[in-house]
């Protein structure tokens, strides 16, 4: 039987990762997606601090934030913490 996966003799022990974690995209786990109201958002960066996956970035050049949907798992913590209720979670 051929497989795209390596056999047990050819892999590193102890589950040592064969790829960098940045190459494992986990954004497709999400059910809910954060949608930001640009009018209400004050760029206070509370969401950046609270995102458990570091999936919200501050872009100093644009003086704005950016959601990285490749890693956002849709947990909704950002929406919950946002002081101006600028983030809503959408199915």
């Amino acid at each position: 039987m051929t497989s795209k996966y390596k056999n047990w003799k050819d892999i590193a022990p102890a589950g040592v990762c064969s790829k960098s974690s940045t190459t494992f995209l986990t954004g497709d786990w999400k059910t809910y997606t954060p949608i930001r109201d640009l009018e209400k958002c004050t760029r206070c960066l509370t969401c950046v601090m609270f995102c458990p996956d570091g999936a919200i970035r501050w872009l100093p050049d644009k003086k704005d934030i950016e959601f990285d949907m490749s890693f956002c798992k849709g947990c909704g913590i950002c929406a919950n913490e946002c002081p101006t209720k600028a983030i809503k979670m959408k199915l």
Partner: protein
Amino acid sequence: MTSKINQKMMALAGDQAVAYAAKQSDVDVVAAYPITPQTIIVEQFSEYVANGEVETEFVCTESEHSAMAASLAASVTGARVFTATASAGLALMHEMLFVTSGCRAPVVMAIANRALSAPLNIHGDHSDSMAQRDSGWIQMYAENSQEAYDLIIQAFKIAENTDVLLPVMVGLDGFTLSHTLENVETLPDDAVKQYVGIRKISTVLTHEGKQSPFKLDPKNPMTMGPIALQNYYFEFKRQQEEAMKNALNVIQDVNNNYGTSTGRTYGNGLVDAYYLEDAKVAVICLGSTAGTMKTVVDKLRKQGIKAGLLRIRTFRPFPMEAVRSALKNVKAIAAMDKSMSFGGNGGPVYHEIRHALYDSASKPFIVNYIYGLGGRDTSPAKLSTIYEDLQKILEKQTIEDPIKYLGLRE
């Protein structure tokens, strides 16, 4: 066999012998939590630390779960790690035992074997370590304090061998060994340090596609044991089984080369046979019971009874071939279990022996004796009755009761 090294005779209880061996083995980290009857080990070791006799980092943890977590964490950085526990402490470590073996961390841990609650009992039996026999740890059991001392030193050689890289549990019977003073021949510090050497680190292929030392190091970042699902988990478990198979050879090599320099070997390292060449009836046991059993065998031999004894020194990996070959001429066998496998139709040792001999040509009679639970005393007179029973089985050529309880009020 004679020793090439000048050794010093010391009066040590089992726990002290273990602590002394760990002290001499150049251990980097000890993370532990005290529990009877193991307490003397960590107590003694903390004294070595306080007196500046060792350079070991001693971590007093808040529980055994944490002790094993800390031991694992230290071990995967390439450090040599020792810890000790017993009974409920080992049970509390249960989850972390699998993480430690799965991360291939060669931690060495002494277990002063003790019963499990309830009802509460602090005395010696094998319930604690037998309950962890499938945790991926190598398990070895000492017959006396001398062997407990030798086994700790050997355990580092076995665990850290790069073909093995598995944690090792060294069992010594609670109180019977842990708290009983014995003459122990000890090696000089530098001889032990030289024997165990510096821990060798193998290399692994990392996510950057290069071979890096297999340890956590900020300069060479790698992730160990994070997640492996349906596509890879199975493969990692198969690797652990291969490491267990490799350990069978490594344990024998270590037993031989340790014997060359110290004059002390224990059977072939896996099993220790006593008068088995021409034995018709034989008993199989673990740990200190073998010491008592040898006096019983001696007595029976004087009466012309062809009695023998097989001590299982290495229980995991279970030495199938060695057991089969040691018992090839025996007609009736009693496997002794100092623990219960509730509902399992006999204890763990009995299961393994029956499993090992199922394919043997000789097809001997095999019976099970559960004994010594909660430290119940097992005298030579009581042990003698096992050989009497075995002889009766041979006379009648049938087993009336395959599972018996030795020393139980019935």
